[in-house]
């Protein structure tokens, strides 16, 4: 009886409204879900510097190239590129059909002026450090007065970028492409660099990307329309409506037909894959790693490399990967992304006896280490705690949010922490930013050996020399174990039931081929 009453009430409430149905409209709309908000539509002024901001700016602004998940490159703002000056510069030949949304053609001067403006020390650009590889800039990416800036318009459609160290086009694009955007500098000519970030232009931006800005409710919704004149083709929709919603609602919305796609690449956990399939959603298995799991270590509170290696040997990475990613991943001994140019012969294995011996060698006094993790990884942390316990290492778990975890590691509050990252194709994608004085998150007492090898790898001109140096760095990391690489994970992609030609895996590089997207006729 009670069930009947509840059902009748629900029907009475829902039927009349459902009967009205959605308003009929001939506009071709792609409804796009995002689990976190972008912070700004000015790509060089993002406090978070997050992939959520990048994936949104990717639609409005143009970049030099399109990066595929396997590291291969396709033309975008530039049609071709080549090395120059014995590897010290890269020359980009720009697409002459590219134009800003106000109709102004995109020229090399726009690119050079964008870089000049953002590296101007008077301009308060938060994302300036992306330029610190260019000649004439300091470590923060600010232009050094009196030095020639490494960004030059050779002619109307030829851009030359000059670097501090030899850099191949592939190295540069794989590392920095996602943060290099061309701005409409013709609209900024009379603006004081100090006031550029305050312009109303960034609240209704004009870019040269595949979509034009229509409307924004900050942190909640963004409406874009297809750019009919985009040089790679008009996207196959009229409007792209990006809505921020909870992660838990992304797949249900796709299954209910209220979303056409969600970033990044419709990522799906193995647990949800069955639900998706039962709901009529096709699931595609990713072919390249899109996540890298590591155990961050505090080298100050775990000062002995023998102890750190003991922790490494006590972990069963296969079991950890199986638990977290249902086996969709490869346990690893290094941070080198599998399938890329750079490889390592190092292997991992669990050896509890050896771990116990190393604990004795390192003088482990039975203290309890604090392992920090976010709530969604508490199960993984518990498994680690159990495995470490089997080797005699005592661990207590602190479940915290991301900000607390990273600040706690930076301040030396925790001994270990579980983190994951989006891997890159370059050999220094992980290490370069973590072994510097400004970001010594592992609290390594002497950064010199790492910094020396990292700078040598960056300066190495040919792949053979570089691979040898990479091997040397990986050997150093294996003997010192400042952090523990766990596994590289592959993802599953929930395929859109309504949009074709989506390059799902490449969204991990914060770019999406929306110009190829087409809405199915039915």
């Amino acid at each position, binding site marked *: 009886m009670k069930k009947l009453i509840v059902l009748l009430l629900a029907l009475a409430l829902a039927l009349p409204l459902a009967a009205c149905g959605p308003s009929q409209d001939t506009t071709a709309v792609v409804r796009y879900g995002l689990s976190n908000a972008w912070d*700004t539509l000015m790509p060089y002024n993002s*406090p978070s510097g997050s992939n959520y901001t990048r994936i949104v700016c990717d639609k409005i602004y143009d970049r030099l190239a399109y990066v595929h998940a396997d590291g291969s490159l396709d033309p975008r703002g530039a049609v071709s590129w080549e090395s120059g000056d014995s590897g010290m510069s890269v020359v980009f030949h720009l697409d002459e059909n590219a134009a800003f949304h106000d109709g102004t053609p995109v020229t090399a001067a726009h690119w050079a002026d964008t870089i000049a403006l953002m590296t101007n020390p008077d301009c308060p650009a938060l994302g300036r450090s992306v330029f*610190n590889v260019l000649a004439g800039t300091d470590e923060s990416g600010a232009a050094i007065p009196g030095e020639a800036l490494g960004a030059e318009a050779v002619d109307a459609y030829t851009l030359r970028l000059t670097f501090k160290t030899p850099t191949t086009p592939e190295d540069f694009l794989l590392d920095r492409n996602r943060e290099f955007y061309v701005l409409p500098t013709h609209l900024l000519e009379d603006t004081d660099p100090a006031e550029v970030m305050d312009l109303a232009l960034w609240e209704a931006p004009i870019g040269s990307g595949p979509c034009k800005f*229509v*409307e924004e409710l900050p942190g909640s919704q963004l409406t874009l329309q297809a750019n009919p004149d985009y040089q790679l083709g008009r996207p196959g929709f009229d409007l792209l409506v990006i809505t921020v919603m909870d992660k838990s609602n992304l797949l249900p919305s796709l299954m*209910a037909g209220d979303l056409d796609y969600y970033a990044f690449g419709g990522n799906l956990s193995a647990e949800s894959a069955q639900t998706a399939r039962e709901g009529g959603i096709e699931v595609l298995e990713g072919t390249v790693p899109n996540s890298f799991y590591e155990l961050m270590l505090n080298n100050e509170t775990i000062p002995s490399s023998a102890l750190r290696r003991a922790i490494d040997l006590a972990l069963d990475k296969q079991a950890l990967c199986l638990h977290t990613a249902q086996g969709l991943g490869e346990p690893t001994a290094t941070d080198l992304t599998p399938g890329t140019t750079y490889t390592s012969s190092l292997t991992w294995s669990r050896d509890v006896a050896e771990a116990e011996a190393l604990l004795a060698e390192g003088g482990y006094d039975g203290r309890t280490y604090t392992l920090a993790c976010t709530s969604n990884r508490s199960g993984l942390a518990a498994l680690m705690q159990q495995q470490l316990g089997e080797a005699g290492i005592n661990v207590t778990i602190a479940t915290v949010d991301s900000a607390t975890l990273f600040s706690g590691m930076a301040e030396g509050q925790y001994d270990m922490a579980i983190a994951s990252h989006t891997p890159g194709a370059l050999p220094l994608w992980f290490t370069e930013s973590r072994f510097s004085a400004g970001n010594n998150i592992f609290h390594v007492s002497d950064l010199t050996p790492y910094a020396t090898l990292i700078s040598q790898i960056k300066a190495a001109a040919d792949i053979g020399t570089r691979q040898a140096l990479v091997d040397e760095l990986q050997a150093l990391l294996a003997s010192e174990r400042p952090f523990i690489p766990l596994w590289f994970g592959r993802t599953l992609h929930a395929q859109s039931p309504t949009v074709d030609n989506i390059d799902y895996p490449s969204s991990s590089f914060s770019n999406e081929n929306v110009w190829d997207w087409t809405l199915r006729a039915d």
Partner: protein
Amino acid sequence: MGRYIRRRLITAVPVFFGITLLVFLMVNLAPGSITDLMGEGSAAGADKAALEAALGLDRPLPLRYAGWLGDLLRGDLGESYFYDRPVSRLIAQRVGPSLLLTGSGVALAVAIALPLGVLAAWKPRSPWDRLASALSLISYGVPGFFLCLAGIDLFSVTLGWLPTHGMYTFGTFTSLTDLLRHLVLPAGVVCISSLGELVKQTRAACLEALGQDYIVTARAKGLTEGGVMVRHAFRGSLVPVLTTILSHIPHILGGSVVVEQIFGWPGMGSLLFSGISQRDYPVVMGVTVVIALAVLLTNLLLDLVYGLADPRVRYGKG
């Protein structure tokens, strides 16, 4: 009464600033800041220091609070660290959707709870009483996030009747029908979440009133049972019921964090959630100001309404 209102407003001032100080300390002393959430830039160290300087996070805490307070007294809630927009503008954009969502949810709950609570009190152990108990149990016992997901699963995924998220289908207002379709599920969850307390409070207050001498007198005078319930018992129970209803006002203004977050509803609750998770202190403080003011004004309003609902309440000098 004018003097009473003035006195209450004056005493509210230190309470208000006390709340802001407490919240300011809580959010600023929580571990981490927005600079710890920066992306995997290749020069995070340099960016982090620059960002801290740009946002003024390198200044001592008392100076930051004094600065924020000074801006507040000039009517400026500051700029969001995350969105780089004035907080007042962000709040202005979010108040309307929150009012609509929580307002309609609570209004629906009131519309169901008052008659149901009265009926349950009037006829104990009747089907109405059992329905009231069942609804209260669901309201108290089932977490909001579960109601959200269960609602989405049933009405959106399985039946396909209602949309799963957002306020509009195409990102902007196209028709009232479209807005209502998007409102039904989240407002339904807010309604169910508020229902238990309202039903229980109404039922308990009516039951208590029914035991009073004036009810016996009313019956002795020959009034019908319906008249006794509506004109005497219900009126007599209004003070606690009004307290419960009006105590929802800050909730209505502040939005419902869980419901707005799951349904992607662009209200104050989701703004607060993002402010806390991004360590966006100005946003958290801005929303706190709005909620604190709402709480203080609601309390004052409650005191004034008591007088209208119950003639025995007088505003003395005490």
